[in-house]
């Protein structure tokens, strides 16, 4: 897998420090899971976080803090969190979330919801598009981050294959075209609603909020 499009450093630093919202973090994590290079950068920023801890002046502890903690060391560990059965086509980072069923939303294009809590109008979903189809129109009101999981699409800024990360904002208005050959599956965090184009889209839009 040759990954050519990565999140920028600010994004990786926000992700590593824990200040990026959950929907966008999930898409970044899907990329990081596939990209050793960004994993190293995230590890470096976590080291940076560790160094900031080392350099922080110590706060006064609550009285008896150490003894309180020592007394709790032998308590049973909390049970391991429940993970969902991995759905087909789902990256491992989605295991903690409910994932909806694929729904047809237009010729060659399917959509399914990922139950990541919404943050400032940003939601997570997956798109699956047939070779040669165009992904729904990217005219939107805020961030739209995509990690390609399978297949590839192209738009004005290049080709995006497995593992590639695409961050678009409202200054970008493009229509990604899925390459011939393989079905394209993407994980997307999007602010605002997806616009369905054409007569079919206008017909469907009242019924499905995408």
């Amino acid at each position, binding site marked *: 897998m040759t990954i050519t499009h990565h999140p920028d*450093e*600010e994004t990786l*630093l*926000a992700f590593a*420090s*824990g*200040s990026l919202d*959950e929907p966008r*973090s*999930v898409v970044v*994590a*899907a990329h*990081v*899971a596939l990209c*050793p*290079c960004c*994993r*190293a*950068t995230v*590890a*470096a920023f*976590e*080291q*940076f*976080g*560790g*160094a*900031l*801890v*080392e*350099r*922080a*002046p*110590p*706060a*006064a*502890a*609550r*009285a*008896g*803090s*150490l*003894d*309180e*903690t*020592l007394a*709790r*060391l032998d*308590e049973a560990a909390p049970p391991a*969190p429940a*993970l969902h059965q991995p759905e087909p086509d789902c990256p*491992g*980072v989605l*295991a*903690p*979330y*409910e994932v909806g069923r694929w729904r047809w939303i237009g010729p060659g294009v399917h959509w399914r919801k990922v*139950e*990541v*809590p919404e943050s400032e109008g940003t939601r997570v979903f997956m798109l699956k598009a047939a070779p040669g189809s165009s992904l729904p129109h990217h005219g939107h009101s805020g961030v739209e981050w995509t990690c390609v999981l399978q297949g590839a699409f192209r738009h004005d800024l290049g080709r995006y294959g497995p593992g590639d990360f695409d961050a678009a904002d409202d200054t970008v208005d493009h229509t990604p075209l899925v390459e011939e050959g393989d079905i394209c599956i993407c994980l997307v965090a999007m602010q605002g609603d997806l616009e369905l184009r054409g007569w079919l889209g206008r017909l469907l839009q009242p019924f499905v909020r995408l």
Partner: protein
Amino acid sequence: MRCGVESITPQIAATLVRAIASRGDREAFKDLFGFYAPRIKTVLMRGGAAAEIAEDLAQETLIAVWRKAASYDPQKATVSAWIFTIARNLRIDRFRKDQRAQLHQVYELMLPAETDPPDVPFEAVERERRVRAALEGLPQEQVRVVELSFFEGNAHGDIATKLGIPLGTVKSRLRLAMARLRDFLGENS
């Protein structure tokens, strides 16, 4: 309460974690606690947590260190970086507003499951060296805005107010710091 531990080297910290993993060494735990707990508390309070919650989370972090000591891999991260990630994940879990929020788990799931040897031996040691060089090479005022913005979650406008500097200065310091960090860390791969 034992007096706070003043400083710790990456080697000593790793030895202490190993002592916990191999023989449940409570003295080693006390040393780790003495150094890290008060500092994690500070970092969490700077990030907006109330003192009591920060204290609880610092304790939880060290309890997790005790429980997970056997899984600590010194090749992959220094103890400080590892503890930072534990505290980060516990903080995210503690402050989540929705039961479906699972970001704290995502950080662990994204790492490869296999424990293959790293490409570079002592990768974590080399990374620690670079990050230390970066921190020493950056002007303190730039480190501070990175800390305020990313690690303490402040909006740029709030940073300007806190530091009493214009918004443009906040942005230019962040830009300069990121450029320097890129130079220091960019050749990771």
